């Protein structure tokens, strides 16, 4: 079964590209969100296996979404035009694919993600 991906990205073109690319890499896009609020709402209704998280969502940082993913045990990779220095301490060890990224970079980053961690209810 294909692993289910949650996209948090405010550029629709990137979402479109990822929607084309991810199935070819063996992933299924189950949901996408363009803002922190919509991402947090979407997470209430979905149980993705992993997430791709843009750091800058229309000027806001996506770290609250990263926190929510971490609490749920959902592994994620940051995508950003900033360097890793932008990440706060609590996410400093998270994976980051620099933008703009190609198919290989994305594939390599996603392959490094651990399986979803079981979280006791």
């Amino acid at each position: 079964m294909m692993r289910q991906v949650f996209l948090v990205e405010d550029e629709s073109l990137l979402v479109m590209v990822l929607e084309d690319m991810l199935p070819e890499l063996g992933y299924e896009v189950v949901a996408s969100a363009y803002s922190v609020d919509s991402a947090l709402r979407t997470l209430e209704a979905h149980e993705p296996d992993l997430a791709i998280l843009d750091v800058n969502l229309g000027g806001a940082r996506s770290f609250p979404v990263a926190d929510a993913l971490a609490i749920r045990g959902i592994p994620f990779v940051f995508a950003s035009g900033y360097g890793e220095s932008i990440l706060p301490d609590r996410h400093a060890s998270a994976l980051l694919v620099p933008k703009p990224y190609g198919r290989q970079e994305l594939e390599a980053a996603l392959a490094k993600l651990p399986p979803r961690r079981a979280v006791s209810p």
Partner: protein
Amino acid sequence: MDTPLEPQDHIEANARLRLYETILAAVPDLVYVFDLQHRFIYANPALLAMWGLEWEQAQGRTCLELGYEPWHAAMHDDEIERVVATRAPIRNDVPFHHSTLGWRVYDYIFIPVFGPDGEVEAVAGTTRDVTERKQQEDALRRSEQRLSAIVNASSDLIFRLCPDWRELELVGGDAVTDLPRGRRMGWSPERIHPEDRTRALEAMQRARDTLTPYRSQHRVALRSGEWTWIESRAVPVHARDGSVSEWFGAATDITERVRHEEHLRLMVDELNHRVKNTLAIVQSMVSQTLRTCSDHDQAVALIESRLRTVAATHDMLTHEKWTGAPLAQIVRLAMGDCLDGDSTWLDMQGPAVSLDPRRAVALSMALHELCSNATRHGALSVPQGRVRIHWWLERDGDGARLVLDWQESGGPVVHPPARVGFGTRLLQRGLQHDMAGKVDLAFLPEGVRCRVEAPLPELQATP
């Protein structure tokens, strides 16, 4: 009453006289005696040299008779009278013209000479040339005044520190703090912000160890409890023996500068983000176009015109300082390729609405796709074709909703496309994502219709 002089005493008196004469001839100070009629009855060689006279020319003359200015002579007359009357010395200073040295400043003492009967029988005087000392004093005073003016005029805070830096005195300057000036107070590292403390203390230690100038940028606590950024400098002041007697320094309030630098850093970050995002958009757009368009030349043309639209939208947003863009302008810009002078085919109307940058880019790209599709297959491929773009605002709960309607007419009969192209996907998928709304695209036989509905934050609906 004194006993008469014995011969023995006489010899001794003569010896004493020679001794005194020798001393008086050798001293650089001026020594003289006035009688009670204010006439010179003695003047030593130094005084004669000052006058440029021989004793015979001066003997028995008063100051006035020797050519002193009347006010000067009168001043000495008065002083002599007072010494006689009070039987006490007086001291004063006065400028006078030396015969060879020019104008000099003299400090003098008049003292009473008592006769055997205890009455004042003459007034003796000694005068010292204090020109150099006066000049030094004046220079020092001027230098102190100048220093004080610099300190007071300074927009820095000027301070002194004792050699071990445990005590601080704010000398002047109106910067940084309203703590009192000119009073010694204890200084402790607690005044430095905890995050900056280690760094600042290291800089201080280094300066004290090496006796080299100290420099540090850190936050200090104000009396109000707020933190303010300062740049602090201090240099050691050495005593004659080479030891450090104190440190002297200045602190500048750099809060504004630090804020400005932080702002610049954020701007650079933001610019970096935009550039990278734009590159990602271009990358996506190119790969999408190549994926859906098999004809090479057509793909190149499509990519070029799509890039032009993105670039033009960025120009427009830059012009608006990235706060947003008026919808009418977005429409006109997106239709740019088609708006070739004659625009009677276009019916465009709607209220003034400003869209945020993300929505502006999304909508201009979407409209561009509609326009380019109409040019190739739809209403704009024939002369009599028309495009109607109307938009309006609807109430939507607490906010407003933008409805934009694209309607083609007068073109050839429309057939739904065999496969979903980039433009269609951008409209349906992209616009929905970026506008957070609903997109309804219909390939009706009489013409393409597209309706976009998007909630607007309160701010964007300009009245």
